[in-house]
């Protein structure tokens, strides 16, 4: 039997203008307007290219989504996965109507509630009770529904004692629990959820995920769920949509999809980007880097868990006997461009051993529970000690680190400060009198 599709997406594209919205906009606006007056198609919609952030484009316009189409059947729990910038968030925004598509059509059967953030519209001066009603109304609940679910929401979030206190006096945990409590009790047929579960502690994440799973299994509710967390996608979803460069790369069964994502995405990084760059390196008379790879159990080669070690692997050929070779990397935090640490496989600066010709491998291990969540770059560096650089700056490999099962990722409302998040041993004892 074919389940009735409740969401039908046809050829959705979304175009964005890059750069600043400023003086140029008026010119383009007039240009578009002039074409529209003449009854012609918008000329700037033809401009633009597939959104690949790693490559520099030639046009000011890009497509964050390009010809995206799929159906979602009733009761399906569809996971949406993809690299940063693959169009996941834009797709959710279009589906939840916070922005409209440039072309295409979406048809939806049933009430939609979208949860791109918990606690949207919470007002710090209002009490917990008032905020439940306000937030519920913003999310599209009627007064009757909120009243009926009120006790359940309070119960779920465990803030009963504070329900008539302004939420500005809540602890951050209480705040998030209350906000998610409202969202978890939405009575819509379709629920769209962004990575909102990343906030809150592990216990709460489990509880919320459990609630979501329960809702979709019992209520025949359709859920769209964006996440980087392959584990929770695997356990919650039955279908998967893999996004790449604003297009649908895979749509189908979740197990098959996760396999595809793991194998394919890694393949893409290696074959298209890195091996190209490897080939384009200037030839060196002593040294040739054959392969470079970042490895982690169950990782896709781009997104890594902070709770497991990351293996940095090199394979290279020594063409002529050489002394004082150093193979290593700089580890750089992407936003601040701050170098966190540099590693050379041979860390004693006095050792200048000779290397015979042949193929070698080197491995460095970045410890588990060392990094905080964030975007990092590995800058591959190879040199002959005290003589010259062989590779430095030509090969930069991006990696995303996610903290899903490591140390509590949030600290108050904010992410924990800093780029490193190693467990620090604490000992607390009663000191006596």
């Amino acid at each position, binding site marked *: 039997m074919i389940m009735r599709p409740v969401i*039908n997406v046809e050829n959705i594209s979304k175009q964005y203008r890059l750069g600043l919205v400023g003086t140029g906009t008026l010119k383009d606006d007039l240009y578009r307007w002039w074409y529209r007056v003449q009854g012609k198609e918008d000329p700037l919609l033809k401009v633009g290219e597939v959104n690949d952030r790693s490559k520099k484009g030639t046009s000011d316009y890009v497509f964050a989504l390009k010809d995206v189409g799929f159906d979602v059947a009733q009761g399906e729990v569809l996971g949406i996965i993809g690299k940063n910038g693959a169009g996941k968030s834009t797709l959710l925004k279009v589906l939840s109507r916070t922005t409209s*598509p440039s072309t295409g059509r979406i048809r*939806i059967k049933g009430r939609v509630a979208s949860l791109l953030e918990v606690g949207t519209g919470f007002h710090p001066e209002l009490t917990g009770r008032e905020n439940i009603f306000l937030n519920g109304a913003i999310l599209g609940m009627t007064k009757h529904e909120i009243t009926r679910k009120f006790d359940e929401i309070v119960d779920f979030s465990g803030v009963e004692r504070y329900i008539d206190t302004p939420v500005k006096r809540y602890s951050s945990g209480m705040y998030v629990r209350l906000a998610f409590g409202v969202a978890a009790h939405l009575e819509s047929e379709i629920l769209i959820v962004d990575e909102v579960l990343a906030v809150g502690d592990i216990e709460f994440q489990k509880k919320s995920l459990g609630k979501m799973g329960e809702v979709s299994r019992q209520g025949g509710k359709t859920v769209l769920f964006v996440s980087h967390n392959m584990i929770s996608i695997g356990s919650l979803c039955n279908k998967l949509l893999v996004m790449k460069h604003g297009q649908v790369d895979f749509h189908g069964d979740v197990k098959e999809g996760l396999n595809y994502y793991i194998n394919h995405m890694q393949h893409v990084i290696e074959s298209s980007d890195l091996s190209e760059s490897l080939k384009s390196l200037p030839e060196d008379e002593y040294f040739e880097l054959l392969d470079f790879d970042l490895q982690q159990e169950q990782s896709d080669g781009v997104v890594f868990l902070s709770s497991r070690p990351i293996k940095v692997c090199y394979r290279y050929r020594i063409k002529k006997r050489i002394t004082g070779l150093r193979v290593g990397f700089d580890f750089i935090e992407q936003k601040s461009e701050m170098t966190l640490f540099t590693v050379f496989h041979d860390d004693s600066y006095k050792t200048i051993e000779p290397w015979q010709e042949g193929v070698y491998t080197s491995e460095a291990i970045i410890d588990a529970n060392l990094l905080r969540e964030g975007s990092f770059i590995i800058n591959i560096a190879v040199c002959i000690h005290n003589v010259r650089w062989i590779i430095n700056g030509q090969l930069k490999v991006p990696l995303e680190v996610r903290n899903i099962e490591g140390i509590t990722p949030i600290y108050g409302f904010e992410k924990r400060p800093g780029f490193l998040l190693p467990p620090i041993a604490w000992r607390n004892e009663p000191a006596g009198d």
Partner: protein
Amino acid sequence: MNSEKNQFAEDWDMVIEPRSSLFSLNLREVWGYGYLLMMFVRRDLVSVYKQTILGPLWFFIQPLLTTITFTIIFGNIAKISTDGLPQVLFYMSGITLWNYFSDCLTNTSNTFTVNASIFGKVYFPRLVMPLSRAISGLAKFGVQFLLFVGFLVYYTLNGSNVHPDLPGILWVTPVVVLILAGLALGLGLILSAMTTKYRDLFFLITFGIQLLMYATPVIYPISSMDEKYRWLIQANPISWLVEAFRHVYLGAGELSLPGLAYSFGVMALILVFGIVVFNRVEKTFMDTV
């Protein structure tokens, strides 16, 4: 597969498309969000009150101080006519109306920029937001209006030259407030739609509201205007409202039915235009804010 799909055709609750037709105003949808509207009004009222020590007293202090200032500067120093009315009542009547208009206009004209964080995360008809602002503004207006009535009673009992016209008050008050609210909301909608893309307008708005006040008979009566320039003031739809208001409450000023009809017409035009422009922008503003 296709036939099975077709069996569900035309059975969709919602269609999302790039551009809707010019006049799909979604007013019915706004109506469906009446409860949300109520909650926003409540939030505005409660939160304003909660953040201050003096609370709603501020609603009194501001018009009182403005009235005193106007009485000193325009009444006693510049000696501008007040149609023979007590200066305090004359200025206060104008200020009460004007304050509502200017508050309402400023509070709605920044709808998109102020609410970008909410609008980016959840959908509801955006019109609910400025509507709630216009309604919660009525509370402040009500308080200031009571202050004005208090002074009016005091002056009447003391035998000043004021002649309230009770039957007139009953129908003119709601009509004037409604037209004023519509004008402020309509203009606010147009401005909010434009400021999302062109921030320059923000600088113009505060300045423009100030200028507009001088083109409205707030600190002078229309009758004191030179015949040659009177049409300029009369072209301003708010002028008719202030004059009608003064006529029924104080007994001076002009209550003109054609004038009120003109104000209503302009209001209706601006409001409809405002809603159309606003609805067009609400679909894409997240990309430009």
